[in-house]
């Protein structure tokens, strides 16, 4: 909200430099987002009389003129045509710097020298008008040479751009800002009383009627009738203030309404009484589907769409006396009764509408206006009379019908709140006395009366709907005491700070994956429709009801699609050799029963979100085997044992698991029928659908359910095992093994057969080729044996060897390679 300092000073004589005032507003929570100085740059602009106008040869858009600014003729060139000889116009002489920093220089156009510039209102930042030069009244007044600001009765001004929080409707107007600022600056604040206009000959009740059918939607409705109205331009000072506040002057009636809203916070609505059917108003809830054409020319459908639980669909309508809708209460008036140049009689509405009703309707219609923003936050129901009188005062000379119609329903009044001094100090960490608290509250309109037992009886004014409870009053105390004056203390909790085991291990997982040469990525959790299908998933995930862009409208069920997009984006920037990993949530679509349960009981998570760790390997030579190696390295680092890579599709319980992976190069990470993740290589077709060339480089893929893995997978014992001091012996055994038998199975058989003396077993060579039966390969293992209490003897080793060979033969039908 733009607030001119001169306007603030109508209500409070605040002094001090602009930066200090801005700082004070900041400290009140009325954050100043910008400060604009206006009128600076107009000091050198003077009033000049047009003496001559002449065409310039060869120019049809500009003319030459001679003006007199009090000290002799000045030749200027001008592109505007709206002035004549004898008119008084503003002249910016050579050397003047206009608002916005435009410096006037001596210029030559079509051979004619221009020694200054005649200015439009916009160039002077007086209004938005740029139709032509500003022409000042009739000939002779003011005298040429008079400074323009003096001629217009204006002073340089400062405009604060204040961000008003939604809980402060009282501060959404100039007077409200002035009230807060005056209290902080310790200067008096006063709202001048506008006089009750002289009563016209006809009582208002003879000119119009008002019926409020639903007073819960409209607790108060005031109507007055203005007669003998001439719709014209507002006085210059009104136009200037509206302009400074960011509103466009329209006509005298609309301007007065806007002016009052900006000054006092009360929206009003003027109707052309002669266009109101039946000459009266009816306020009621709209019937579902009822329609009205608003001022902006759009047809609005009311009561038609629920915005959530608790919405009763009752939109408040203003109808004419024949019950035809002519406006949406508190939001926007209708086109049919709009004020026009020919309006002679104005029916003026000033009401207090239910904030929640306006909020719901505004949201339902997706229609926010200056008025609705104020009504939904809560206007002052007792400020209406003052606002109406002020509006009439602004329309100087208008006749007003005697009296006003005032329909009152359940209007919120001043609220009593008991405030405990001890509670104030306990919550703020202060040591304020009752008198100090009263001294902070009274200047902002709160009545404070000490009661027994350290309790203050505080009466909250009607313009502070935000302040209902003791704690709300305490906030006002804190605000006016000053947050910066509250001493600082750091609490010392009795508990030990910590991250839990899962969080600690999750950090470790990231470090391990980074150690494998992968950079951590952060791909979007929201995908485009069809991304899952492109990545080989059977269906799309949970959809966003109101996506900002369609590309971000589906919640991911796997990190794969986002990661492939990241690989493709890098490849597109000539960074094809990339390894990436990510840790993040995925969102399997929940069953309806689960959603219902979560929404009813507010306990369970709505979606069984899983935190996954995924690795994509696309460096030269990377493939499924590299991904599998990454898994084994990670498992080893985390001490996970017994989770095996299983290729058998039947071992995979989750239907979508393994989607998008190369069917012959994938495996599931399984322990006792629990599936922890998938490993393998991305299907070449999937790569292609993401714009990655499968011929250029294979992509290894590993995706783990991290929560499940770290929470439930079996781990190596933490207990120390003794290392033998006796020499160990190595045994190399190469088996010819059928392709269907996993190396891990042979390894497991060897580990079991080797027993307690087997220190470790390692697959060190795989051979396929001549010399082996078809459908087999040779797997060479190195077994290291060692005893804790003696050096192994030849006979023992011989026995161990025989046992291992026999076990592999029995379990896998594999023989030693000859």
């Amino acid at each position, binding site marked *: 909200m733009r607030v001119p300092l001169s306007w603030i000073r109508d209500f409070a004589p605040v002094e001090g430099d602009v930066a200090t005032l801005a700082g004070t507003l900041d400290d009140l929570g009325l954050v100043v987002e910008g400060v604009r100085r206006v009128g600076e740059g107009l000091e050198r602009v003077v009033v000049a009389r047009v003496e001559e106008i002449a065409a310039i040869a060869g120019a049809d858009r500009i003319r030459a003129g001679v003006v007199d600014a009090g000290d002799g003729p000045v030749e200027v060139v001008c592109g505007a045509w709206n002035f004549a000889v004898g008119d008084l116009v503003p002249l910016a002489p050579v050397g003047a710097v206009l608002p916005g920093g435009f410096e006037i220089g001596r210029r030559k156009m079509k051979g004619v020298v221009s020694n200054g510039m005649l200015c439009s209102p916009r160039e002077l930042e007086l209004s938005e008008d740029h139709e032509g030069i500003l022409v000042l009244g009739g000939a002779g007044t003011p005298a040429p040479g008079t400074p323009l600001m003096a001629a217009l009765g204006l002073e340089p001004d400062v405009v604060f751009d204040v961000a008003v929080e939604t809980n402060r409707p009282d501060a959404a107007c100039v007077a409200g800002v002035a009230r807060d600022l005056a209290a902080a600056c310790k200067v008096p604040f006063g709202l001048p009383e506008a006089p009750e206009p002289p009563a016209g000959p006809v009582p208002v009740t003879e000119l119009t009627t008002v019926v409020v059918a639903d007073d819960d939607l409209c607790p108060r409705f005031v109507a007055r009738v203005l007669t003998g109205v001439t719709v014209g331009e507002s006085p210059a000072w009104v136009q200037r203030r509206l302009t400074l506040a960011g509103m466009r002057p329209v006509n005298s009636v609309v301007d007065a309404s806007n002016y009052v809203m900006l000054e006092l916070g009360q929206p009003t609505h003027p109707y052309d009484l002669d266009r109101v059917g039946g000459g009266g108003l009816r306020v009621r809830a709209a019937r579902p589907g009822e329609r009205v054409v608003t001022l902006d020319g759009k047809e609005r459908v009311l009561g038609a769409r629920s915005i959530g639980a608790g919405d009763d669909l009752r939109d408040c309508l203003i109808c004419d006396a024949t019950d035809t809708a002519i406006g949406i209460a508190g939001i926007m008036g209708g086109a049919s009764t709009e004020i026009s140049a020919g309006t002679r009689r104005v029916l003026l509405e000033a009401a207090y509408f239910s904030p929640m009703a306006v909020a719901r309707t505004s949201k339902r219609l997706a229609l926010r206006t200056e008025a609705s923003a104020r009504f939904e936050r809560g206007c002052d129901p007792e400020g209406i009379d003052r606002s109406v009188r002020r509006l009439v005062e602004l329309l100087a000379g208008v006749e007003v019908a005697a009296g006003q119609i005032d329909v009152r329903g359940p209007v919120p009044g001043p609220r009593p709140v008991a405030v405990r001094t001890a509670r104030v100090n306990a919550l703020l960490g202060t040591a304020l006395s009752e008198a100090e608290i009263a001294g902070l509250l009274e200047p902002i309109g709160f009545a404070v009366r000490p009661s027994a037992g350290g309790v203050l009886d505080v009466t909250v004014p009607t313009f502070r709907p935000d302040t209902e409870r003791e704690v709300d009053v305490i906030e006002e105390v*804190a605000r006016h005491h000053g947050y910066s004056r509250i001493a*600082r203390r750091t609490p010392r909790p009795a508990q030990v700070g910590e991250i839990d085991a899962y969080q600690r291990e999750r950090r470790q997982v990231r470090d391990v994956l980074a150690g494998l040469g992968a*950079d951590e990525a952060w791909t979007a959790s929201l995908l485009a429709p069809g991304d899952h299908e492109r990545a080989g998933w059977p269906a799309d995930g949970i959809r966003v009801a109101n996506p900002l862009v369609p590309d971000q409208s589906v919640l991911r069920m796997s990190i794969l699609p986002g990661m492939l997009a990241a690989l493709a984006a890098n490849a597109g920037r000539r960074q094809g050799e990339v390894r990436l990993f990510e840790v993040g949530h995925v969102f399997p679509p929940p069953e309806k029963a689960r959603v219902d349960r979560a929404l009813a009981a507010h306990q369970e998570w709505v979606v069984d979100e899983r935190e996954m760790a995924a690795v994509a390997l696309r460096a030269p030579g990377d493939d499924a085997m590299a991904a599998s190696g990454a898994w084994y390295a990670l498992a080893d680092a985390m001490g996970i044992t017994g989770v095996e890579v299983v290729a058998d599709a039947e071992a995979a319980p989750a239907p979508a698991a393994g989607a998008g992976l190369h069917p012959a190069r994938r495996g599931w990470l399984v322990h006792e029928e629990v599936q922890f993740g998938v490993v393998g290589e991305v299907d070449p077709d999937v790569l292609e659908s993401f714009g990655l060339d499968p011929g250029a480089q294979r992509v290894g893929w590993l995706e783990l359910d991290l929560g499940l893995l770290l929470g439930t997978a079996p781990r190596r014992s933490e207990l120390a095992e003794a290392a033998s001091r006796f020499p160990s012996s190595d045994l190399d055994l190469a088996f010819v093994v059928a392709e269907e038998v996993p190396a891990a199975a042979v390894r497991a058989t060897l580990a079991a057969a080797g027993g307690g003396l087997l220190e470790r077993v390692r697959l060190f060579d795989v051979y396929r080729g001549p010399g082996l039966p078809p459908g087999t390969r040779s797997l060479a293992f190195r077994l290291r044996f060692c005893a804790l209490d003696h050096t192994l003897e030849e006979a023992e080793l011989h026995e161990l060897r025989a046992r291992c060979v026999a076990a592999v033969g029995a379990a896998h039908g594999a023989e030693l390679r000859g």
Partner: protein
Amino acid sequence: MTGADRHASDAFDPAGTVARARQAAADAGSLEALGELRGVLLGKRGELVRAQRALGGVAPEERRRLGEQINSARAEVEEVLAARQGQLRAEERARRLAEERLDLTEVVDVPRRGRVHVVERTRRQLEDVFVGMGFAVVEGPEVEDDWHNFEALNMPIAHPARGMWDTLYLELGPPESVVLRTHTSPVQIRLMQRERPPVYAVMPGRCYRRDTPDARHIPIFHQIEGLVVDKGISFSDLAGTIETFTGAYFGTDIHSRLRPSFFPFTEPSAEYEITCTICRGAGCRTCSQTGWIELGGCGMVDPAVFAAVGVDPEEWTGFAFGFGIDRCAQMRHQLPDMRVLLENDVRVLEQL
């Protein structure tokens, strides 16, 4: 001198033998040549051996003296050879090692460790600061029900304050009943549903808003919130905690200040600003010459929030605060545009 003496002297000249040996050793250019020389000087045909052999013919009284001369000459020759051998060995080692010279900057394909994401590292640093202050780290779901994200936080349906967050709703349940959480505050609610006070916890995590991305805002972002609930907690504790955290994370020359603001779930509420980390408070373009930049929001937990989770606000008081993790990373690393964080360009990931 006798004639016999003279004869013996003519036959063996110890000084000359040693001098010749010294010269020959110096001339030997390699260990191999030196080995040959040793054979010549000390071998059967060498002067010393010949002189030794000739001793038999020398008069007994001379023999002893001459023998001593021969022995000492031999010892001297051996010393000369050993010295030369040491010298040649050192030279040869030096030559051999020089030949093995490596340019250690010729490394081909430096093994690369990947980087943990800058946002994650920032999160760790922030978590660690709060852990040091006695806080636990608590997490929750990214998909939330309306109750946790809004209603329990003192924002009933159609509450105007909901407009402060541009919310993404999901097609689950009745319209607008399930959201992508707009802040990590619902985790506070879940924590208080689960555990009784005292509570000292921070809640980091990913949040979503229906925002058009710009240099300082991205629709998917990370936030960390803190919640303290205990007996006797006041606004003083809030201000002190913010100041302690600010100094610990940004450096002791960075301070904090609180200004009145509005959040439905806190009362009183505050915006908190810290000394501009670019100009250290002197005033620059980033802080619009004010020396301060906005970091986040905070305040005393509103009694309505306590009521939603069944905590007695007369017995317990508390405060909450929150700010953007990505924003901290942006400030610390002076990222001009937050949107690069969503691009996953490895050139960015590798350097940050």
